């Protein structure tokens, strides 16, 4: 099941020294590009309906986020990060049909995700916990607009 609280905790592991499970800041941008796909994976791994697309999504997300390391522009950062989570989510959706008995067609959220409010809040100086909460709220809300359609019955269910 999707869990906003789980996502908040995963983010705080890497950005909030006041969090009891804080493991440390990624020391380089390259390490950061590995951490964020793991956060996405941990959040989406138990999505309902099930999917086999998470590992591939993780790879795509990493490749995208790596591009941030060579670009300090804030707008481009948001664009790349948005693309990373969007492509990750597309893999999550496309991985649903791969699950036996191969009857559910995953469909990503119909509207683009807007992460700018979370990043703007970060730049405005909110705490790491507050950022994690805002970010998780946006992602979780957006994820729950994703659907899966039973190709036999046509019944559609929202991701959860």
């Amino acid at each position: 099941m999707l869990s906003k609280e789980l996502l908040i905790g995963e983010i705080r592991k890497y950005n909030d020294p006041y969090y009891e499970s804080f493991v440390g800041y990624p020391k380089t941008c390259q390490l950061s590009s590995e951490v964020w796909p793991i956060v996405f994976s941990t959040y989406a791994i138990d999505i309902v309906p099930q999917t086999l697309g998470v590992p591939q999504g993780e790879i795509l997300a990493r490749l995208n986020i790596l591009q941030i390391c060579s670009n300090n522009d804030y707008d481009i950062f948001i664009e790349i990060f948005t693309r990373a989570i969007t492509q990750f989510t597309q893999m999550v959706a496309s991985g649903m049909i791969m699950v036996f008995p191969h009857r559910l067609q995953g469909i990503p959220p119909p509207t683009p995700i807007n992460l700018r409010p979370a990043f703007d809040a970060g730049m405005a100086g909110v705490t790491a916990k507050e950022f994690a909460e805002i970010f998780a709220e946006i992602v979780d809300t957006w994820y729950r607009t994703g659907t899966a359609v039973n190709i036999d019955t046509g019944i559609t269910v929202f991701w959860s």
Partner: protein
Amino acid sequence: MHDEDEILGIKGITAENASAGVGFVIVPENIDIDLYKEDVYRSGRISIYGGYGHSNFYNILIDREALQRVAFPEKAGDMGSPVVWINIPKHNEPIVIATLKYDEDFNSLSEFRSRTTRETEGNLVDFDLDAKKGKVTLNIVGNDTTNGEFEVNINSRNGKGGFKIVVNGKLIEKVTDSIIKISEKQIANVVTDKKGVIVASFDLNSQEESRFTYEDEFGNAVIATEEKFNIRADKSSKIDFGDGAEPVVLAKTLKSLLDEYDDAFKKATFPTPMGPSGTRMNEQEFKKVRDKFEDFFSKLTNTD
């Protein structure tokens, strides 16, 4: 005092029955002129041509003052300074009592003016007292081989000889080379106001703890001792180097502020899109720099 007979004798040199006359300084024949001159100044006796109607008078007495103004001819047979001589009957010997203006003297004298000039071989000394102008002029000119010098020697057994110049106006010293003042004890220059209160003083002293001291009424001072060279501005509290466009840094205060800054910076985090950043990761590098903060302490200069 000498008896006049001792000085002149009674036979003397014949003055040819004249009581006085005007003659000219001469140099005897067949004699070294320089040796002759030395002999004249040493003995106070000179040779003259006695003037029209007279012959030469050799080795006659000359007044000491007159002797100072005598000009000798360059060779035997020529005439030197015109002189006035008198003959004292009892002694029957002419005595030169005055010199008259010599043809080659170029200083015209006037009333209330006295001038003494000596010139030879391009050297000249000239002492001019002009009461009308209220002016005394001392001219000294050296030639190519002499320097032209003015020397005053003052000595006293108690070591308290003095030389005082008091001028109600300006005292100007102008030279083309150096002005060197040497003292075994102290050289001081003081400026006062009209009441005599010191407004600025400059002192070089071999006896005091401070070898060099400048002080003025504004509370400024420069004091040089063995331990330090001290510059003070107690009243204005301002010392400028050059235009003084920028203030001098207080090194200890700066170090203290940099320490504070570094302590704060050590804890600094920065907003990022994903929340505040962590603190700096290169702590060791910062520590190395901080350990060198005292390197900017001047070992030469201190200020308040």
